[in-house]
């Protein structure tokens, strides 16, 4: 049973292995110039040295710290603002113009001001992630909280829930599917913004590692770092998906 599942997974991802083999063969037979792409062997060796020296752990730690602080705070703040806008009219009137103007703005445009405001430390990157993910979170929680059936709210009220209690016992829960799918998009966006910001303004983190090794022509290390970033993006999405399935297990989930 377990073996069969493992075999299935291996078969599913076999095209990736095929690509790796193609990469290996073409570097062995000099089909691509070595200065354009290091061989898989060289890349793996570089990865191993990065791990063994502890350098990778440090950069990964810095990046994960910035990403999670920025993302989690944007989820928390964005959800509160979105639900507030959906359920309280004066909040909606105050914030609607900001949201309509800021929503279509490419989130990455803020990175240069953050450089001006916060300099090179953690804060500029955390802020980039936070500000970039804030609006997607506001709009998804707003949409979720707008559509709550009034009868659910009334049921809760006639079972003794207070008006404020209803906000998080009913409206937050009813909006959860929208909030979580917004958060999944924000998760992908957060890594994009973080890596980009680290490439531009940083002295550490994975984005810095990639751009620094690239600038110094150390391509084996650069490829290794890129592989790590891609892997982190992939696995964090998978992990989030599991979390989402669990949190929404009360729903008929689409496949």
């Amino acid at each position: 049973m377990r073996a069969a599942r493992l075999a299935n997974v291996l078969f599913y991802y076999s095209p990736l292995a095929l690509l790796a083999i193609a990469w290996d063969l073409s570097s062995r037979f000099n089909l691509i110039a070595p200065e354009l792409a290091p061989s898989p062997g060289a890349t793996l060796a570089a990865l191993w040295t990065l791990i063994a020296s502890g350098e990778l752990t440090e950069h990964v730690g810095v990046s994960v710290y910035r990403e999670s602080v920025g993302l989690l705070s944007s989820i928390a703040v964005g959800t509160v603002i979105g639900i507030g806008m959906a359920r309280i009219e004066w909040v909606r009137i105050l914030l609607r113009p900001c949201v309509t103007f800021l929503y279509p703005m490419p989130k990455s445009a803020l990175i240069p001001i953050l450089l001006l405001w916060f300099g090179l430390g953690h804060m500029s990157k955390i802020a980039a992630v936070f500000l970039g993910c804030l609006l997607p979170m506001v709009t998804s929680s707003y949409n979720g909280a707008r559509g709550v059936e009034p009868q659910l709210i009334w049921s809760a009220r006639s079972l003794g829930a207070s008006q404020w209690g209803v906000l998080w016992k009913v409206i937050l829960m009813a909006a959860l599917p929208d909030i979580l799918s917004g958060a999944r998009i924000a998760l992908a966006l957060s890594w994009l913004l973080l890596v980009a910001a680290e490439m531009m303004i940083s002295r550490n983190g994975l984005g810095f590692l990639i751009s620094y090794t690239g600038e110094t022509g150390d391509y084996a290390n650069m490829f290794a770092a890129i592989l790590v970033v891609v892997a982190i993006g992939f696995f964090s999405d998978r992990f989030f998906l599991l979390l989402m399935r669990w949190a929404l297990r009360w729903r008929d989930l689409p496949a």
Partner: protein
Amino acid sequence: MPKITFNAVRKVFPTDSVNPVVAIDHIDLTVRHDEFVSIVGPSGCGKSTLLYLLGGFIDLSGGDILIDDKPVSGPGPDRGIVFQHFALFPWHTVLGNVEFGLAERGIAKAERREIAQRYIDMVKLTGFENTFPNRLSGGMQQRVALARTLACDPAVLLMDEPFGALDAQTRHILQEELLEIWSRQKKTVLFVTHDVREAVILSERVVVMTARPGRIKAVIDTRADRGGSSAAIDARAEHIWSILREELSR
């Protein structure tokens, strides 16, 4: 002292167009303690609106509603409601739904669990405690909604076409269960239905409403018929139908 008093109740909904909708024009009605009153009327005549006003979910446009001589202000656990489409919390299990109101009252976990279990058993859902509502049939979901409301032990029970979405067989079973529950734990019940026969079987009085704007057209005492023979029930239902038919054809 009556349990519930409707005094010249009026409800107007503002709409986007110029003309507001007068849902309820003028209703006077008193309901005794532990009385079972059904409300029938053409659809759109304001039956749900009347229950929502009593529940305190929406505001009056005129008149007042008294419960134990105190005006209604906002929803409260003294009035439980059961909706046609159940309105269960889909993210809570059966147990979680039934415990909701008990938790709001601050009852300790162990006791909450025990009370909830009693009501789950009462509506014959033993064994489904940890099931989520989307895995249950319509009839079972409505049983959960009934248990959830009864667990709070409200003095007034508002039911808005509670069996309307169910098949005939399930409806029949739930009607009998409701009567049995009502005869054991006395409650004042306001029961909206579009099924005249159901109204006769269940209630002590049937209120017939006019087409919109809703007013009271007739109030019929059915205590003599409800326990009686099928023929007596049919005759009374036919009588109410004939009153209602005038409104439907308007």
